[in-house]
């Protein structure tokens, strides 16, 4: 991923920043310019809580080439207390134990290394709350 493309995503990947619609209250992640529910353009930046609950999940056993060494890994849609949903990997556990309803925290992690130089790309992963 060319660096400007990566850099543009820093607010959501580093700071878990979404947006809240000032008109209808919808929370999106990442931030959007236009509210998907009411089309208002009054979207205000809002950092999400670093916690949530698994809505649905899977274990990826045939990964893309870039993540061959990581497989198998769990991926889940997680809903935060603000009502935002995001797709993240779930780490530090047996991937088969990640099921809908699981409580997780969201932690800043290395997501992947890209290109010949192995540029380190960060973001958030979920970790089960024990």
């Amino acid at each position, binding site marked *: 991923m060319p660096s400007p493309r990566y850099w543009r995503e820093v607010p959501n990947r580093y700071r878990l920043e979404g947006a809240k619609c000032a008109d209808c209250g919808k929370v999106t992640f990442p931030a959007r310019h236009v509210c998907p529910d009411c089309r208002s353009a009054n979207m205000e930046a809002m950092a999400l809580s670093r916690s949530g609950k698994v809505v649905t999940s*899977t274990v990826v056993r045939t990964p893309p080439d870039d993540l061959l060494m990581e497989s198998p890994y769990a*991926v889940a849609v997680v809903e935060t207390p603000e009502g935002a949903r*995001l*797709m993240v990997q779930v780490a530090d556990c047996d991937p*088969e134990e990640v099921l*809908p309803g699981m409580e997780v925290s969201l932690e800043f992690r290395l997501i*992947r290394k890209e290109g010949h130089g192995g540029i380190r790309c960060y973001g958030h992963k979920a970790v089960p709350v024990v």
Partner: protein
Amino acid sequence: MRDVAIVGAGMTRFGELWESSLRDLFVEAAVEALTSAGADHLDDLYVGNMSGGQFVGQEHLAPLMADHLGMAGIPATRVESACASGGAALRLGYMSVASGMSDVAMVAGVEKMTDGADVTNVLATAADQENEVYHGITFPGLYAMIARAHMAKYGTTDEDLAWVSVKSHHHGSMNAKAQFHREVTVEEVMSSTMVADPLTLLECSPVSDGAAAVILVPLDQAKKYTDRPVRIRGVGQATSAMALADRRDPAALDAVAKAAERAYKATGLAPKDIDVAEVHDCFAIAEIACIEAVGFACEGEGKDAARSGMTALGGKIPVNTSGGLKSKGHPVGASGVAQAIEIFEQLRGEAGERQVEGAHTGLTQNMGGSGASSLVHIFERV
């Protein structure tokens, strides 16, 4: 708007076709379609293709294909909507003829997937790159999450999923052009390699090469080409949130439901009027969610349809008599057009062993990505 009919069709075998290039596949299907209709020219050409650029490094397919068909000069357009590219091309061809802009249009779909590309990666470009693919999700993974949501909400089981593949392979065993002709058992499906939990290998459509093409003309000119035209009664197209996380309900395919609703509204028909259908079963869970979305089963009840025989040949509403994407194969850009060809043959009474007796009205449902785009076409015997 003029009424539009399909008067000819051509299709390659689907499978790992090492001897054929992207253009070879197109030309084979296109020539067969022209010959079957007895058409000597085209006023318009639409080519559905998801990713020639990534699969074989070839973009700009419209002039390439027109040229290799010996028709350089005609208007031609390549259409992309991921795995719904073929269906989207069909809608544009329909509009071209219905509007009066052309009298003979070809709609084709083509994909060459086995020339060495990292197919998992290429297909994943139909998902949200920044917010889904970045985190390592794959297409089987996305549908696996839809499956798990469906299981959590409706009690759908691994066995329910397996029955869909058993039915698809049974139908595909009767289709000479299908990639797989082998019947499978519930036990085989459930014990095959896990790809993305809960989906096993035999619940995933294969990587395929193939092409399909149809010829569209105004209904009132159709008898010049064939005694048995098939009318396109109407079409619905819709979109939904791109990312699974942004959907109202990850167990539901809202774009499919909306596309179906529009197609029913355009035709004045209802699910009960459909005699045979092809739906987008890229994964076993997709067939279950799609038959719910198009109204063949109530919400949450699609899981029982394959096991009970409701959607099998001889059942109340036979679905994917061709073998579906699962058994017939899924050259992504071609699938939407191939679905229309199965219905064309069914409504003409040409489906051989797979024939649905007395089929009068048929439906195709094609979708892209994890369901963010969808098309529903309804066809009728004339």
